[in-house]
């Protein structure tokens, strides 16, 4: 078991490093400069990648929350926590890069564009989730409560997106279908390839961070238990 997970770790690491440099090369050198927006358009690649990972991390929090409610499990509890932590990082990155991109192309730091606003709400839900996990009490208790909150938060995100979209289209509800398409109709094939590759790279980065974080958190738990045992032995 540990051998397999060691191999997975190595595999992830050795795909991560070259694909990272390749992604940077693709983004900065290979892909053409957009005519209208110029160089800041290159923010787009990593912005989209981080946004994708932010939502993916949240779905994974929801998945482990459901698993945890069905049967409390320390590993699932840890996985959900680490996923939420990484999610906060990537949501922050998405928000900041989105703001800077907005500044460069629309000349405002913030617009209540549905995707941007949903990401902001998502950030708040993540932080609230981490606060729930910071509560004191036995881990089973916290696992259950945070799982409940994770599920409720997951239900909320699509509703937020829809509400903000309705709000933005000035009271002419569109449920599904054409919105304001950001990337424009035609995207150059080089750009598309670069975009897909950077999304792939960031997903690998997420998987790598996730595994490392879970490993460390598990070790922390083991050490905590060993310490408690040692203390009680010393005391007796």
């Amino acid at each position, binding site marked *: 078991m540990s051998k397999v997970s060691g191999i997975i770790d190595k595999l992830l690491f050795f795909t991560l490093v070259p694909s990272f440099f390749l992604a940077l090369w693709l983004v900065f050198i290979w892909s053409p400069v957009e005519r209208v927006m110029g160089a800041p358009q290159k923010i787009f690649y990593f912005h989209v990648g981080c946004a994708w990972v932010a939502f993916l991390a949240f779905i994974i929090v929801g998945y482990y929350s459901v698993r945890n*409610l069905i049967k409390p499990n320390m590993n699932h509890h840890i996985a959900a926590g680490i996923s939420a932590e990484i999610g906060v990082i990537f949501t922050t990155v998405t928000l900041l890069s989105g703001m800077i991109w907005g500044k460069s192309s629309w000349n405002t730091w913030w617009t209540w564009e549905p995707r941007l606003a949903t990401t902001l709400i998502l950030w*708040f*839900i993540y*932080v609230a989730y981490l606060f729930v996990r910071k*509560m004191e009490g036995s881990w089973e208790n916290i696992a*259950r*409560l945070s799982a409940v909150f994770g599920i*409720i938060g997951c239900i909320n995100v699509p509703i937020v997106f829809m*509400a903000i979209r309705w709000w933005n289209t000035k*009271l002419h509800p569109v449920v599904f279908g054409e919105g304001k398409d950001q990337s424009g109709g035609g995207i150059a094939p080089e750009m598309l390839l670069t975009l897909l590759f950077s999304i792939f790279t960031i997903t690998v980065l997420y998987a790598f961070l996730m595994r490392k974080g879970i490993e460390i958190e598990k070790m922390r738990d083991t050490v905590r238990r060993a310490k408690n045992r040692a203390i009680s032995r010393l005391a007796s």
Partner: protein
Amino acid sequence: MSILIDAWTIAWKDLSNELKTKQTIGMMVIFSSLVILVFSFAFDPTNNMVKAVIPGLVWLITIFSGILGLNRSFLSEHENDCLTGLRSAPIDPSSIYLGKVLANFIVVTVVQVISIPVLFILFDYRFLGAILWFMLIVIVGTFGFIIVGTFLAALAANAKNSEMLLPVLLLPLLSPLMIAAVQGTRIVLENQDISDAISWLQLMAAYDLLFLAACFFLFEFIMEGS
């Protein structure tokens, strides 16, 4: 059916307690009046801007005073371990939730009945909209707020700093409801096309139903252990 009867028993317990002391409702009314007062300093009420901020203010005072009441609703059960008593009673845990929702909803509605007219008077706002639609929007919006609020109050009651935790948990989850409620209220108060308000109302109703179902089923997990 028995769930509803049990729920009403619990709601009646809370309400009669409240009728005896009148402490929570009194505090909530005073607090919401104070919020109105502070806002009338912030936005000059003689200005023409009043029309633009009134729909938001209706919901701000509801939420701010509502959070006060929600905080009390489960913390007060911690005294003398009343919650353990409730849990060991031969009733479905979901009926505790429904009862609390009912009690909180009635309390917040009573506060609204007083504080919303106060808001209109202090801001010297002439009400021209359709009053029935306005009431419907307020009721559906408040119900959604209480559904999620009661659930999270039960969740937050497990923490030591639950008064601080509750708003942090509650406000992001309320954001879609609040957008819909404020927009719907604005349309009604400005006497615009009512069909737009209806689509916001539908969104609120969908939110209410979805979260009522989710909270109803998940409440058992909050009550376990703790």
